[in-house]
């Protein structure tokens, strides 16, 4: 059963474009993102601050705030066009089909309502028939599932009476209480300390197995990606510069930005004298993006063509593609060699 569902496509994002219309001009926060996500899969979206990863996620769940607007592309969940839904359809859609958990569990729970109130409210919003007692029972089951003990007492407690890790568990319970098919996790472990991070990741993996849901996991922490993700999209300046399986990205990165990210990540297995290599330069001014590849000004392999034209994607493996002129050059060289060898064979 599990194996069967694994191949089923859950989410399809196609050429998504999101712009913010600011007084200073249009900011293309997300500019042509595409990916597929199956059930039981975790897609990691990696990138630095301002690269558009959160904006991309917000547009899936319809939480984009004005002046942000989806200006192109499509988002399809289980064959349903998400962007075509009306406002009231979106209200029902959120929470029941797609849930989202956020970065800072300290501020994401409403301080003036009890945990129980906030949990059952989510349930009752999507299930009008359910009685108060039934909802409370489900909420307590959910709390137990996310590893919270003494649930009856917790139900009556306020967020400020719980620790950060516990609050994030509550957030996860709240997200999953209506059994959504897709969970969007926007840096859910960034605000937590490392031991709690590991526990939360473990919990998410476990719950995913149980519920067969897909997860879009937004992070700038490659260590976390390695821990939980199946696939990774690397974003830079609103564009997806590389996409592939975790192994592809970590062992065979195709884009200089991905390589830069990997080199700037501390590793346990590194030799003690090895230094981290930062990516030089500053992120792109999104109001005036460069014409060519947005990473070109910071790239160590910049060529003339990089500054003029955005490179198309080059397939580097079954599900591995990168947008870089270097790879295109390589591929052309390979083809040439191939045709040359073919030619010589023909002779």
């Amino acid at each position, binding site marked *: 059963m599990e194996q069967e569902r694994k191949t089923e496509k859950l989410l399809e994002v196609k050429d998504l474009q999101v712009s913010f219309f600011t007084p200073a001009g249009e900011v293309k926060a997300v500019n042509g993102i595409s990916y597929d996500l199956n059930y039981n899969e975790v897609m990691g979206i990696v990138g630095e601050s301002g690269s558009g990863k959160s904006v991309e996620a917000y547009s899936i769940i319809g*939480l984009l705030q004005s002046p942000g607007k989806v200006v192109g592309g499509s988002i399809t969940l289980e064959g349903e066009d998400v962007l075509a839904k009306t406002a009231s359809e979106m*209200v029902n*859609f959120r929470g029941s089909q797609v849930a989202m958990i*956020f970065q800072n569990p300290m*501020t994401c*729970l409403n*301080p003036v309502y009890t945990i129980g109130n906030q949990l059952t409210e*989510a349930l009752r*919003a999507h299930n009008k028939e359910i009685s108060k007692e039934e909802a409370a029972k489900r909420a307590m089951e959910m709390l137990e599932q996310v590893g919270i003990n003494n649930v009856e007492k917790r139900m009556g407690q306020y967020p400020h009476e719980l620790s950060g890790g516990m609050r994030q568990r509550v957030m996860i319970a709240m*997200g999953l209480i209506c059994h959504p098919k897709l969970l969007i996790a926007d840096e859910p472990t960034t605000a937590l300390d490392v031991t709690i991070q590991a526990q939360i990741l473990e919990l998410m993996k476990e719950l995913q197995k149980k519920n067969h849901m897909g997860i879009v996991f937004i992070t700038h922490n490659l260590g976390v990606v390695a821990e939980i993700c199946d696939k990774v999209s690397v974003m830079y300046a609103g564009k997806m510069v590389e996409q592939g399986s975790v192994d592809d990205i970590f062992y065979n990165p195709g884009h200089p930005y991905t390589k830069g990210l990997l080199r700037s990540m501390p590793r346990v297995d590194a030799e003690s004298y090895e230094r981290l290599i930062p990516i030089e330069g500053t992120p792109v001014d999104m109001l005036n993006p460069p014409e060519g590849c947005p990473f070109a000004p910071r790239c160590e392999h910049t060529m003339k063509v990089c500054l003029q034209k955005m490179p198309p994607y080059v397939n580097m493996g079954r599900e591995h593609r990168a947008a870089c002129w270097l790879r295109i050059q390589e591929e052309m060289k390979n083809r040439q060699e191939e045709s040359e060898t073919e030619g010589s064979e023909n002779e």
Partner: protein
Amino acid sequence: MTKYMVRRVIMAIVTLAVVACTTFFLMNAIPGNPWLSEKTPTQATIDALNAKYGLDQPLIVQLGKYLGNLIQGDFGTSIKMQKNRPVLQIILEMFPVSAKVGILAIVWAVLAGVPLGCLAAYKRGTWIDSFLRIVCTIGISMPGFVVATLLLHTLCGGIAGVKLFPALFDGTPASYVLPCIALGFYPMCYLSRQTRTAMLDSINQEYIKTARAKGLKNGVIIFKHALRNALIPVITYLGPQVAFTLCGGLVVETVFSIPGLGRYFIQSIQNRDYPLIMGTTIFLAAFIIVMNLLVDVCYKIVDPRINLTRGN
């Protein structure tokens, strides 16, 4: 909690004592005496009256006596306006009239002001917000007697054929309408502005994002999640304002000839009716203190993070 309440009560008594002393010395510092009117009595008459009401004694002795009586619940008797009637009796007779108008005024101010503030915050930047901003700015800056006069003029016969409400207060339900509107207009506008500011703050909090992500309806998000967090500044303002409004809008009571407590504040000072000045002032001060205590208890109810006993 008991310890906290005991502290608060002691503080209240100290505050009242300070209010009483300050008022006492200030009112005696005003030139003139209770016996002056169109017909100025002879010096001998004045001396005799002063002696009768104990006004010939040194101030400090008068104050001591007054406070002594006050502790026993004796507010003294009026010496001018309703001669020889106990002040407490006057207050208890006048207050209900003011309170009735005041409660109605505050109720409509809250029922209109808070939702309008929410609406303005929710529709920020639209014409609704701008329109409400203009109305509220006018309401906050326009003196009460202007509002009262405008209402009187437009709805009580000033315009030919339009006489919807009686111009004078006679205790009938219809005669309550205009005073309540006039009295509640300022708090309504002020509350609406306060609510808008506080709502804008809480709407931008992360838990609102969570609430939206949960798939809650807009109404639930605004009124359940955002409003409750925005209530603290609203309650803070509302506490003392309730006391002021219930004790009578001085101006509004005068314009509509309402026989309420508010008029006595002014008239007792004009007439130098010393015990009545003291009585009304202390009554209002006590009322405000009680309201502030209520406000603090409400904080705790609205926001469970607030701890009343700590930090004291």
